């Protein structure tokens, strides 16, 4: 029995992967900590991620059309498999709550500062639940339009910021000590790129199963390009001062002022952050809901979305005591926390499948 009947196309999948990767990096701009070499760190991170997701593609190629939860159960049997699935689901769920609060903190701090957090989060999770309820096809079709809008916005902002570009900001090139750079690269790898592990729940529904690898790599690569360019733009515009701001990319948009006429573009930026955050949270919520339903062999995943979404919102309210805690967490320990889930679990399962020789005689079926 299939819980999800929808099939998604290659183009849409690649587009939502781009949006997903760009997601919270749009706001938080990771790796700015290493100054003008942040884009190098991002490139290192992308490179690492491109190597690591090889595992995911191998896994999906071994078990075409099966989600990570189903694969786990095949490889490790009902109990150990369920345990690994639980870890994975916890990660997705927790990531969803972090992303949710990242974006809504922005709304709360910059757009409607006096509105209580609960209301903002409640309103924020509503469209996510609705879209996840409508199923994968709708998520992808909605998402791809949002991503196209994002890319248009991106081009527009790039164009408008040209006058404040200072290419000297890139200099001096590579003065950060290597361990620091490597650490920043690792953080970058795990912060936007390896979060794509959630697509292990979505790619099985791709209508061309032989194109899974293409989808993963195209999405990751172009998403990486977008992120790297956004970081480069930030350095070009703000230079070293980028670290001084809580939301540097928003600030960089705020200072656009062309001939006293084209200014106040932050409305576009804010809309973009909310839309892209919606996309990311929706994907995560959907994956969590579908995962739980498959784990417990429910007949339908959709009823779970409301309580799960409420739970995600409530947990997101209980993640940090203040914005600083959020930044510390994201920049310092997140990569260590996430790597075992986002890189370790697929690897473990792949090794397990390889040792047990699975899937052995699929062809008899």
């Amino acid at each position, binding site marked *: 029995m299939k819980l999800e009947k929808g099939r998604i196309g290659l183009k849409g999948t690649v587009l939502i992967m781009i949006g997903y990767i760009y997601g919270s990096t749009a706001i938080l701009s990771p790796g700015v900590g290493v100054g003008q070499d942040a884009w190098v760190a991002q490139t290192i991170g992308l490179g690492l991620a491109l190597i690591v997701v090889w595992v995911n593609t191998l896994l999906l190629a071994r078990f075409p059309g099966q989600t990570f939860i189903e694969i786990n159960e095949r490889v490790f049997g009902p109990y150990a498999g369920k345990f690994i699935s639980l870890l994975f689901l916890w990660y997705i769920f927790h990531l969803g709550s972090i992303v949710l609060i990242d974006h809504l903190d922005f709304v709360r701090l910059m757009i409607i500062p006096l509105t209580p957090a609960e209301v903002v989060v409640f309103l924020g999770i509503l469209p996510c639940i609705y879209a996840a309820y409508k199923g994968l096809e709708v998520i992808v079709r909605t998402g791809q339009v949002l991503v196209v809008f994002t890319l248009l916005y991106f081009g527009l902002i790039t164009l408008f910021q040209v006058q404040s570009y200072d290419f000297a900001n890139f200099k001096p090139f590579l003065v950060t000590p290597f361990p620091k750079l490597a650490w920043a690269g690792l953080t970058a790898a795990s912060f936007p790129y390896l979060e794509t592990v959630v697509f292990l729940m979505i790619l099985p529904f791709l209508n061309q199963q032989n194109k899974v690898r293409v989808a993963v790599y195209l999405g990751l690569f172009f998403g990486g390009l977008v992120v790297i360019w956004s970081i480069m733009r930030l350095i070009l515009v703000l230079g070293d001062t980028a670290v001084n701001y809580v939301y540097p990319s928003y600030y960089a948009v705020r200072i656009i002022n062309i001939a006293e006429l084209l200014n106040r573009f932050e409305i576009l930026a804010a809309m973009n952050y909310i839309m892209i955050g919606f996309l990311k949270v929706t994907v995560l919520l959907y994956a969590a809901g579908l995962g739980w339903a498959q784990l417990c062999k429910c007949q339908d995943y959709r009823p779970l979305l409301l309580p*799960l979404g409420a739970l995600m919102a409530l947990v997101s309210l209980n993640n940090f005591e203040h914005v600083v805690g959020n930044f510390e967490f994201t920049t310092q320990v997140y990569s260590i926390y996430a790597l075992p889930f986002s890189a370790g679990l697929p690897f473990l399962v792949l090794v397990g499948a390889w040792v047990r020789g699975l899937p052995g005689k699929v062809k008899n079926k």
Partner: protein
Amino acid sequence: MILFYGMLIYSALREMPRYIKRKDWRGGGIFAFFWLTALAISIYMSLGFKRPLLNRIIYNFIKEMFPFITKLS
């Protein structure tokens, strides 16, 4: 908070009859699990206790396990 209570009550009113109709006890069980957890957290929060600060705990734990992080970032 009242919004979350509303959401939970809505979901219960909407889904419980369907589960009973379908006799999908397993799905109903997991639904109830999430529902009750969410309700518990809502009540906890609306009673005005200090928030549990999940990520703070993870943060402190990992910071202690890997002290080199502070130097690098």
